């Protein structure tokens, strides 16, 4: 994706971001080399993945996992590691 980069004269003093920075504007999922694939059939909704995810990428509804935020998941694999029922599999990106 083409991003218009600012020159040094256009930046706010001290690298401060007025209005605040939010990851909602900054999709970091492109860093990922492996993606977690969640199996809803196997999942027991213990929320271990939700608890351990360093990027808060598990969507929940009524304390049940509903999906994964691939815009911000960096593929660290912690969720697959802590899942007690192997309901998350790490699949190489770009393979399909």
């Amino acid at each position: 994706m083409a991003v218009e980069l600012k020159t040094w004269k256009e930046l706010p003093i001290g690298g401060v971001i007025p209005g605040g920075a939010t990851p909602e504007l900054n999709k970091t999922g492109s860093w990922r080399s492996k993606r977690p694939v969640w199996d809803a059939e196997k999942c027991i909704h213990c929320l271990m993945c939700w608890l351990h995810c360093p990027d808060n990428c598990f969507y929940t509804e009524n304390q049940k996992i509903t999906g994964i935020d691939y815009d911000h998941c960096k593929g660290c694999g912690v969720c697959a590691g802590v899942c007690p029922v192997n309901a998350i599999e790490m699949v190489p990106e770009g393979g399909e």
Partner: protein
Amino acid sequence: MQKTVVGYRKAMTGHKAVAEAMRQIEPDVVAVYPITPQSEIAEYYAEYVHNGVVRTELVPVESEHSAMSACVGAAAAGARVMTATASQGLALMVEVVYIAAGLRLPIVMALANRSLSAPINIHCDHSDAYLARDSGAIQIFAESAQEAYDYMIIAQKLAEDKRVRLPVLVNLDGFTLTHTLQVVELLPDEAVKGFVGEFEPIHPLLDVDNPSTWGAFAMPDYYFELKRAQQAGMEAAPEAFLEVQKAFSELSGRAYRGFFEAYRLEDAERAIVVMGSTAGTAKVVVDELRERGEKVGLLKVWLWRPFVREELVKLLGHLEAVAVLDRALSFGNMGALFLDVTSAFVHEDKRPVFVNYIYGLGGRDVTTDQIKRVYEELKGARPSHELRYLGLRE
């Protein structure tokens, strides 16, 4: 020089002079950790806070790293912030000094110059200031307790200038200035308060209606641009420095003009370039040699960072020989001040012969006889990259 306010003169140490400037500025936050020879600055200020003389929030931190970290946090929140340190304290603090400069926070700090370990020593040299040379902080050197007081006030206004917004270190020689009594003329409190004015923070964190993010990560696509923008703050500093210095001179009647003090330089053939209290010793020698008809002068550096090359070339260009005195080693090369001075002349066809002396390390006394020797050795000096050591047992 005409002055606009009437000051009052008192005998006091350099510590007290700095603490009085801080009391009159009355910053919102002072975060400080005591270290010789700076401790009394912290102690005086703690006393002012305890006695209710100032409304400053004093943060008695557990290290200098924490002191500067607290200063950064408070300044980002929107507070006017000051601190003080020396030697190993600055060495521990310096990681965060770089951050203060990168975040463009106008933190003013007195640095009671003291040598760095090892061997451990508590006395004066400029190795601590040299350590922070490339930190992005503005550095000013004071010759006397009076200058330390005056430049603390000037520093506050300079740091907060919106074109600049950088931390400022005011250097005063440990013990030589911090612990000796000198007569200092203080301005009235309200004159100092009026001079520095209200601090206007940019995007303060405590402005919760207008949230902002500080200290964000910058990847290779933006880090370079942000560092270039930081350099622009330094580039704006000389002009702002002159404006603030001029305004202060008009207020106080003390004639501060320029980035350097030129002492009997106009018709001089030989001169010394020096920073800090040794300038006072050298002036005595200049006067004495002048009485004997020798054409000698002195250039004292007030503003070391940024280093203003153009004015230096104007002031020294006509001389035959110049000795640059560095009060710290820059291991593996000539002294840092020597490199500053000589590089200013690199494109000049007409330039003096330059020699470099290292002097006064670890508080070694600098005598008038030693300074006389330097002026003597400048007669017929030839260009050389030999490092000379003043007052060393060879």
